[in-house]
């Protein structure tokens, strides 16, 4: 007999026991589903952010869901030693040379977008420190970010989704977004005068997000950094009109003549400077140090170059650099991971993923 006690236990108690046997696992399953977001379709998740990028620019298998069009570069970083007093990161030790694999790109999810379609360029870098730690950063060529939170970023993406009828974003929705988000004002003021540059080499690139350095004395310092180009625009240099792909050709031509250089400037915050709001620049008079020089000496196509399989997650940081309370940083980490998983799954031809398209389509997405 499997259950010798059954006959002696009152029916009500047995029913109660069976209820617990079933209800406890069910409650666990429910809690799991709730934590995993399956019961809250309105929660902003990395998946929904990346789905929105795809809604705006289409699905281009194998490519990044944002900053899809770009080129790999390689070189090294020579530390000046000036930042060593503020951060114990090995990359800042005096005289230290650190190899770098980087990527220049333009924002947007369309890998065939014309270079002149946006005034923004980006630089992503992976510093491979001698101690095995890494520093990854993605920077944009603008002094402020349009929004401060992932929720606002998502709203901006939604407002920019092309209308199926026209193939272009609905100006009314964009206007409504900007009206509801006054924090975009500084970015819009910059964008009014910004022109698409003719070269990746002449742009400066800003971290925008704030980070925290920890020095040898254990002191913490809120910082932002930027890359300032050595190359300057020849007067009147403008992006060639009517050409979709000039940035890559320009980069190749410049590198054929020699390496390109940027100075890495690190700005230290004063107490009270906002670290959680990438829409606000810090005042110009903040202490700024030159941490070293980035030297870029080669480039490779992104389809086969070493940057292809790197996720430039800005929260991958060495000892001595940490994330701040900037809410964009964890959102970037989570979203980049989802984008990275989608594109590597497509490269691996896993079942259920979109197939990798090797040649550009004639009718590029708007």
């Amino acid at each position, binding site marked *: 007999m*499997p*259950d010798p006690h059954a006959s002696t236990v009152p029916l009500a108690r047995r029913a109660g026991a*069976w209820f617990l*046997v079933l209800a406890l696992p069910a409650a*666990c399953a429910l809690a*799991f589903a709730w934590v995993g*977001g399956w019961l809250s379709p309105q929660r902003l*998740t990395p998946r929904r952010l990346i789905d929105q990028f795809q809604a705006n620019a289409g699905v281009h298998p194998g490519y990044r869901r944002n900053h899809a069009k770009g080129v790999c570069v390689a070189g090294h970083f020579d530390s000046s030693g000036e930042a060593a007093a503020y951060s114990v990161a090995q990359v800042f030790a005096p005289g230290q040379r650190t190899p770098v694999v980087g990527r220049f790109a333009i924002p947007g999810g369309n890998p065939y977008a014309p270079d002149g379609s946006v005034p923004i360029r980006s630089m992503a870098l992976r510093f491979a420190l001698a101690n095995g730690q890494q520093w990854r950063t993605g920077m944009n060529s603008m002094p402020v970010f349009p929004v401060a939170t992932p929720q606002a970023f998502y709203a901006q993406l939604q407002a920019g989704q092309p209308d199926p009828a026209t193939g272009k974003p609905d100006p009314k929705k964009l206007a409504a977004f900007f009206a509801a988000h006054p924090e975009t004002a500084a970015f819009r003021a910059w964008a009014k005068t910004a022109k698409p540059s003719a070269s990746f080499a002449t742009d400066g690139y800003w971290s925008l997000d704030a980070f925290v350095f920890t020095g040898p004395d254990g002191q913490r310092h809120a910082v932002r950094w930027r890359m300032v180009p050595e190359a300057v625009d020849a007067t009147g240099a403008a992006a060639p009109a009517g050409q979709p792909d000039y940035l890559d050709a320009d980069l190749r031509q410049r590198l054929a003549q020699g390496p390109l250089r940027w100075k890495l400037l690190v700005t230290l915050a004063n107490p009270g400077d906002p670290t959680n709001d990438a829409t606000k620049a810090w005042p110009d008079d903040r202490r700024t140090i030159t941490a070293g020089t980035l030297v870029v000496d080669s480039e490779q196509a992104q389809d086969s170059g070493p940057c292809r399989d790197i996720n430039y997650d800005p929260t991958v940081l060495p000892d001595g650099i940490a*994330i701040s*309370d900037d809410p964009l940083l964890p959102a970037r980490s989570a979203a980049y991971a989802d984008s990275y998983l989608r594109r590597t799954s497509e490269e691996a031809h896993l079942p259920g993923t979109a197939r990798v398209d090797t040649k550009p389509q004639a009718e590029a997405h708007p």
Partner: protein
Amino acid sequence: MNNTTGLFALPARILHWLMAAAILAMLFIGVGMVASVSERHAWLLRIHKPLGIAILLLAVLRLAVRLRNPPPPLPADLPAIQKLAAHASHWLLYALMIAMPLVGWAMLSAGGYPVMLGDSLRLPPIFPAGPVAFAVLRHLHTWLAMLLFLTFLAHLGAALYHGLIRRDGVLASMVGGSRKS
């Protein structure tokens, strides 16, 4: 039988409950962090990696403890099919508590990430970097986690069934105290 007390050895019981809490926490932390874009994502991930590696070390210790202290036998009157289910699910739980951290570690290695357990503690890579390996291992991490969670649900239901319905001393053998029989 080597085990005459009818109880799991004290170290086995301590490890069981400690690891039950840790593994359950890991499952919730895991699904919570990949569904979040807030600060939670960052601090959950900071817990996830070192705790996962701690589970790997504890699992090895636990198997060693098990080799030295055979578990008490299941009740003799338990139907053979239930005995089989009990043994199979226990081995599946052991396999998963070792596989999960190894897959997590291997997938970060394959993705080319430094496997950081803290500000400066870094584990060496255990898998060559490559997008195909990363994608496969990253999906495997999810699917094995779902299998682990389902096995846990069945395990919980079975433990309660023994404790509340059959009242055959199996739950007591892991909780401790005296085994009535």
